[in-house]
């Protein structure tokens, strides 16, 4: 049995009141709260080890380098990568996808090629590909989403022609929580020779991701959505692909030697990490990975699935609530609307009750359009949430219906 109190106690930001009410944080899909161990790891680094990495011979530089590289190994292990050099530190999933789009896709595709994405993508997995299409003349095609929020796999299969060069899609939808069958998707893509790019921003904090099992070519993660700090994330890339790619940005650390005549690149992954990276961020992310290991994905998944079922039940019991895209294979994201009440008003009324949810288009305008909505309310769950949190959500939603419904 999960001791939710011990878990909640690890997150200092959760212990506060909003007005007269206890904070109920149901916006973890936007960013998760940070456990004390992550905050301590960052503070500790700045208090004791702060130095630049990969260059100094002095003790602090050695310590900082060791911690930074240790974080890379932890992430490689968490994701079951075959080697830790396959993990590149970036600012977040957005930067990871842009890196693949510009450094991998752009030089390799042309006007006969197709980039295949889905209707449920976050803007960060749409716009980088639109840019590549503009730059290369390639075309963008979109796999539709079904009424229950799941991906239309039949449509995917028929859109997956020999012309498809890249398949890019979310592992878990940020807006409605659908878990896509990425292993099957990647296997099918492989049959037509397409390169696969999975946006795992919403997955890694909530479910075990085994990259060698999924067998994708690239996988993007975001540190702050998995208990780590903002401004740090990772791109996983298959070693051979990373080897054959040209660098993305030039600068210090990504070179072996520089002269005005010729510059040679550093090895993977350093080739893609120009400039002083977010050292503290990487170390904080490493601490977040340790925390996840301590709790274990089995517990995280089980707890969030129980809460998901309970949360749906609480909301469906309220007259006037509609769930949006509540698929069978869903992560802990509940998207909903209240008949006759705008999500923005729901957000304000819930905030007043101490309940933090996200309202709006969730950076997924095409998906909103597909469901005929301008905006939704989204309650997103995490290991530190409780049934009481969802009861508070229910009370707030009823209050919104009373005021405006």
């Amino acid at each position: 049995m999960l001791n939710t109190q011990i878990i909640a106690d690890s997150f200092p930001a959760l212990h506060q009141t909003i007005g007269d009410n206890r904070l109920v944080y149901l916006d973890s899909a936007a960013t998760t709260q940070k456990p004390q161990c992550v905050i301590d790891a960052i503070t500790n680094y700045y208090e004791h080890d702060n130095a630049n990495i990969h260059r100094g011979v002095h003790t602090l530089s050695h310590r900082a380098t060791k911690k930074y590289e240790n974080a890379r190994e932890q992430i490689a292990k968490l994701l079951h990568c075959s080697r830790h050099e396959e993990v590149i530190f970036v600012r977040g999933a957005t930067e990871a996808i842009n890196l693949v789009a510009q450094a991998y896709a752009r030089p390799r595709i042309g006007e006969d090629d197709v980039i295949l994405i889905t209707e449920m993508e976050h803007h960060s997995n749409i716009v980088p590909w639109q840019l590549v299409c503009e730059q290369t003349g390639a075309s963008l095609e979109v796999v539709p989403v079904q009424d229950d929020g799941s991906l239309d796999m039949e449509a995917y299969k028929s859109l997956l022609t020999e012309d498809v060069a890249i398949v890019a899609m979310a592992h878990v939808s940020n807006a409605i929580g659908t878990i896509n069958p990425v292993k099957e998707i990647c296997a099918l893509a492989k049959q037509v020779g397409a390169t696969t790019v999975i946006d795992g921003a919403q997955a890694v904090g909530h479910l075990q991701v085994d990259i060698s099992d999924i067998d994708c070519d690239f996988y993007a993660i975001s540190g702050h959505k998995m208990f780590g700090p903002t401004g740090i994330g990772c791109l996983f890339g298959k070693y051979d692909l990373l080897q054959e790619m040209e660098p993305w940005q030039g600068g210090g650390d990504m070179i072996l030697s520089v002269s005005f005549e010729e510059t040679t690149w550093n090895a993977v992954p350093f080739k893609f990490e120009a400039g002083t990276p977010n050292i503290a961020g990487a170390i904080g992310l490493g601490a977040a990975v340790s925390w996840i290991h301590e709790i274990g994905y089995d517990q995280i998944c089980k707890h969030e699935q129980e809460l998901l079922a309970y949360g749906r039940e609480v909301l469906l019991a309220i007259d006037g609530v509609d769930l949006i895209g509540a698929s069978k294979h869903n992560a802990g994201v509940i998207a909903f609307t209240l008949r006759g009440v705008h999500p923005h008003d729901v957000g304000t009324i819930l905030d007043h009750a101490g309940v933090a949810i996200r309202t709006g288009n969730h950076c997924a305008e095409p998906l909103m359009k597909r469901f005929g909505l301008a905006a939704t309310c989204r309650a997103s769950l995490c290991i530190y949430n409780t049934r009481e949190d969802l009861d508070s959500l229910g009370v707030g939603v009823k209050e919104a219906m009373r005021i405006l419904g």
Partner: protein
Amino acid sequence: MSDLRELYLEMVTDHAKSPRHRGKTDPCDCIGTGHNPLCGDKIVVTISLDGETIDDVKFDGEGCAISTASCDLMAEVLQGKTIQEAKKLFQGFHELVAGDGTAESVPKKLSVFSGVREFPMRVKCATLAWHTLIAALDGNNEASTE
């Protein structure tokens, strides 16, 4: 903590639920589109003029309770006002919802939005109607809260 009841006064919720000035003016002398990227709201404000005097204002589109009620009550108070008076009203309204509270007096119907000041995240919802109106009067077809 700010009081929710001051934000959602009965007059506000009433106009949000049953707006009286939805539609498009005929004739339509000015038109403006307002967009709040934060919530995805889009409204269209149309105006019919009699010289320098506003004959009628209507609005269309979807928005939250604050933005809908603001559109509707704006349309109500502007009938028969001159363009200059409308711009002055906007200044007074802006001061009321986003200023320091020393607003010049605004018509009673607009003062129901004084509670918005306590909800900084909702100021843009209240002012979208007015930004769109001014854009329409100035011949700029688009206004954004950003």
